[in-house]
């Protein structure tokens, strides 16, 4: 379980670096974020939720059943409040989404 950061999209704001509970994300000399210790990622997705430009995706390692799917979140306008949209880009090029209303509790 780890993350990848799209250097083309990254604006170097440093929010992912600030929030990572393992301080695993650093900013390089080109003012771009990179994960310095990819094997140490817990998979909490804090950085993904923090990134304002959707530059960070996460994936399952192949050792725990990953099959090439990359995931990120985007905030979209809902009827009453912002909705978190989880976007799954599968290995075959297809895309699935799941919308979560932060104001709605889990059913289970």
């Amino acid at each position: 379980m780890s993350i990848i950061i799209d250097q083309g999209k990254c604006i170097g704001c440093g929010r992912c670096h600030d929030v990572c509970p393992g301080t695993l994300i650093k900013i390089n000399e080109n003012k771009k974020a990179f994960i310095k210790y990819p094997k140490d990622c817990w998979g909490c997705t804090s950085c993904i939720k923090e990134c304002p430009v959707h530059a960070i995706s996460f994936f399952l390692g192949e050792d725990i059943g990953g099959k090439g799917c990359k995931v990120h979140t985007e905030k979209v306008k809902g009827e009453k409040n912002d909705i978190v949209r989880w976007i799954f880009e599968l290995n075959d090029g297809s895309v699935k989404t799941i919308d979560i209303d932060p104001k709605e509790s889990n059913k289970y």
Partner: protein
Amino acid sequence: MKIERLKTDLLIIGGGTAGCYAAITAAKANAANNVANNAAYLKILIVEKANIKRSGCLAAGVNALNAYITEGHTPKDYVEYAKKDADGIVREDLLYSISGKFNDVTAHLEKLGLVILKDKDGKYVTRGNRNIKINGENIKPILANAVKKLNNVTVLNHVNIFDFSVHDNKIDGAYGFGIENDTFYAIEAKAVIIATGGAAGLYRPNNPGFSRHKMWYPPFNTGAGYAMGIRHGAEMTTFEMRFIALRCKDTIAPTGTLAQGVGAKQVNALGEVYETKYGISTSERVYGTVAENLEGRGPCYLRTVGITPEQEESLLKAYLNMAPSQTIRWIENDTPSKANVEIEGTEPYIVGGHTASGYWVDTKRATTIEGLYAAGDVAGGCPQKYVTGALAEGEIAAKSAVEYINATVDCHAPLQGSRNDVETEATIKEAEIASHVAEIETYLSQKNSLYTTEQLEEAMQIAMDEYAGGIMTGYGYTEKQLNIAKEKIDEIESLTGKLSATDLQEVMYIYELKERLTICKSVIAHLAARHETRWHSFAENTDYPEKDNERFRKYVNSRLENGQIKIILRELTAEGQRNYEHHH
């Protein structure tokens, strides 16, 4: 390296759930006290090695509040449940003190912004007897925001505390370093709350390769609080009651949501429901799964095949709010309505929020070091505390610490004619700072270490896995094996002095390794001391496979004396006892 000296009244080490709530409570208790006495505000400082917005166990969120007194139940019911689950080895005074607060802290969390599921009459919707349903994805940002609003609380993020300052068994501060600002911190405080959480990474994890950190407990919780306390001679309790979580295989995602949410039963490879065969306590659920595998009826699953499309959709969403990896797993493979979810036990952890390991505290959460209070996963004797219990303990510890500061504040002022003592104290302090800084600089400057910190960490995890009851042995161990584990841990510890680091983050990794080694030794000593098997899997002593109420219906406690771990067997507190004081 810059040296910064800070002075505060109350120092809180660790800004997770318990630490943040301790700060919120202390600020409030203090404000009330000051309005009454017209006194100055206490200064409160939280020091956190990551960032309080997403640090500790709840970085990814939490799916339910697992400790709540639902309608028709009482705090006594909760105490009875926790006591039964731990087969008697709990402190009832501690359990009563938290369970009486579960519903108040929940109401406070809701006020701070936590979404809790309600029915049409506005009542919380329950899950089983003790749980309520929430959207806990943002529980940490909610707590962090509440802390940010407090004027007299300062937060120091990205600072790793690695030692207490203790003199004559009384704490007066702590030492740490900024991971990214090349600064050594010497912090003076009148009282300290330790809230650093439990310890992960002692044992080889389920997936030791690329996904080694895809574990149940946060891999960044390295047990610093336990280790610092152990080294300064604090009494610890019940380290032998390890916690092993029953999880979804590979993703190590929670199983409770499947079991309680959609009623999925534990079944073996033959499709037989086996959970009733071994019992349904937390440890028995793990043990049953291990036993079925050993007897050739594995792998084991949670039977989800046949759930409705609506149930499936809700599950996919629920996991995104707490363990997103499981949702990816389902999206990339068969969904739970089409394939049962394989389950496995994790590597053992030491965590006082689930089992009873941790500091030996009194009812006020005072440890055996004067001025040091413990809350959350680092505090022992009080299992099944979960989120609301950690909040309640943060509250209790904060009130006690503020009370202690207010009661002793005059004694801390230097008396006339005692200038020499003050100077001596200052000299001792300066010597301690210099020695800590020198040690850090040694790690940064020495270059020719044969081993890396990572290699020694792996060696430790292998030793614990093979000889101290890890996954490899189905969690069982013998005295002979424990002796080998101890020898190996001692050897690894002797190699840490030569480790090298290129920056302070790597220095932190060295200190974290040393913390884990300290805890491993205590765990081994505790496992060796309990000559019985009271909790399957959690403490599976194959030399003594039966329970021995005669000799071991007791707390196994320990204290480091002259470098040796001394085991202390203590009698259980009386049934229904509401208060416990230290006599030391």
